């Protein structure tokens, strides 16, 4: 029995070597892990000969693994930074990127709220606590109640960073998207932010999603998939996949699958936006 195990062990190692070309290792952003796993599972039923392994650990880890060869594709919810570009140059690696999906954050208020669209500047003033009463900016005469996420949420970090603000100390910190939606249903003076994917799945009777505009640009709804594909919505963040350029032939089937109709359907169903055109 022992010898048998021993042989099996070697068999596994050698078979691993021989099929090296058929394994795609994906590492990186925790935001993208669930979506990538869903995509990989669906991909397997189409290409059973290619094995895909997916793991998280953060965008930085993904890119580092891509550099030292531990990953074939790096998932990243941010663009590659200067330091990493420099390291790549030192290592003589040429990489390429692909935006496989986008994430959007929706700004939500009660149906009774007079706003239909809102400027980024106003959102900034509200969330930072500079404006405390609706009467200061519209015909509504109620104090503003902010419903946000807790500071361990990626959405919290993202909104804070893209607006460049500190959240108002009076902002309530809720446990998750569901609690924000329920609180807003009961509170017609509230404003909150949740992932657009959650809105697609959730029941939002009595609420409305505000269209958002920046400066002179057109106001865009967070549910407008086409505008998001064109990059016109303010609170959208592209989800990148980085790969080594000379690996293209090896990983192309998976990337092509993500771009396919099936792939797009999975991305939409998971609460993200597929890209209509490649960038």
């Amino acid at each position, binding site marked *: 029995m022992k010898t048998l195990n021993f042989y099996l062990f070697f068999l596994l190692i050698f078979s691993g070597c021989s099929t090296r070309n058929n394994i795609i290792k994906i590492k990186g952003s925790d935001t993208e892990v669930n979506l990538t796993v869903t995509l990989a599972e669906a991909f397997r039923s189409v290409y059973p000969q290619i094995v895909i392994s997916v793991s998280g650990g953060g965008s930085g880890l993904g890119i580092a693994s891509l550099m030292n060869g531990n990953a074939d594709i790096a998932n990243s919810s941010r663009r590659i930074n200067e330091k990493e570009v420099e390291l790549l140059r030192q290592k003589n690696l040429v990489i390429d990127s692909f935006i496989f999906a986008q994430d959007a954050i929706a700004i939500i208020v009660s149906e009774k709220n007079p706003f239909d669209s809102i400027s980024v500047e106003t959102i900034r003033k509200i969330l930072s606590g500079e404006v405390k009463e609706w009467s200061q900016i519209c015909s509504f005469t*109620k104090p503003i*109640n902010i419903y946000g996420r807790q*500071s361990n949420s990626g959405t919290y970090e993202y909104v804070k960073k893209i607006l460049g603000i500190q959240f108002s*100390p*009076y902002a309530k910190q*809720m*446990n998750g998207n569901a609690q924000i939606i*329920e609180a807003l249903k*009961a509170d017609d003076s509230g404003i909150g932010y949740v992932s657009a994917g959650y809105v697609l799945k959730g029941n939002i009777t009595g609420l409305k999603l505000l269209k958002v505009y920046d400066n002179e640009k057109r106001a865009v709804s967070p549910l407008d998939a086409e505008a998001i594909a064109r990059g016109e919505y303010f609170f959208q963040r592209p989800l990148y996949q980085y790969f080594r350029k000379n690996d293209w032939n090896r990983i192309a089937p998976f990337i092509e699958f993500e771009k396919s109709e099936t792939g797009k359907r999975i991305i939409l169903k998971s609460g993200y936006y597929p890209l209509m055109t490649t960038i």
Partner: protein
Amino acid sequence: MSTQIRERLDNTFRLIFQSSGLLTILLLGGILFMLLYNSLHFFSITSFTDFFFKASWDPDEQYGFIPLLISTLLVSLGAMLLAVPLGILSAAFLSELAPRRVQAFLKPVIELLAAIPSVAVGFLGIVLIGPAIAKVFGLQNGLNALNGSVLLAVMSLPTIITISEDAINAVPKAHKEASLALGADHWQTMFKVTIPSAMPGLIAAVMLGLGRALGETMTVLMATGNASAIPKSFLDSVRTITATIAIEMGEVPYQTRHYFALFAIAAILFLISLIINLTGEFFANRIRKYHA
């Protein structure tokens, strides 16, 4: 059994019991050391004035501890205002007035209250108590200090009732009989004789209940809204020390100012509950000695 074997067994068992006792002390000492060590580190890089006089807790910017402290105290105080009268009166009812059968049924039910997981209590706060508070007070949202107080009152009731009941039971029968013999009625006896002579035990009950309320995390995290501004009333959202640690511990980069700050507030919470629990124990011991 030979004497030798018996002695050896005795020694072995003594060693086992001794070391398990020592292990507990060691654990407590270790936790205390870790808390103090890390908080000292925090105070070596942050001034006391920043910590005690800044009005907001906003990690990486300012570390004002006061809003958190006021929130914690406000919620616990509210819980005690609700739970103490209710708890002591229930205890008095249980030990003095309730028929034996009611007593036999009610006691386990009250103790069962302690077995409800705090997440479940917090959930009730979100879906039941919160909306009810919003309706009663005409608010937009019921996630506030009052909500936390109501839930914590429910959670500290079993502690308060159980210990109060023991204290009331421990009042010697002779005291009551003397009072009744002098012509006092049942109520006068209860409020002027029984409850006053059980007072040390009742204080112990309140202190231990308060200790329970101060340290509770999940319930207040879910039900109080977690806004980090200084609350002005029971109807404001609050953010307690425990909730802050629970929310931020998961994402704090290690060995940074923010990380040490969380240890510092944990150490202060530990000191507060230590003092309260010691006070409770002190009074509990007094009643034990008194009646021994």
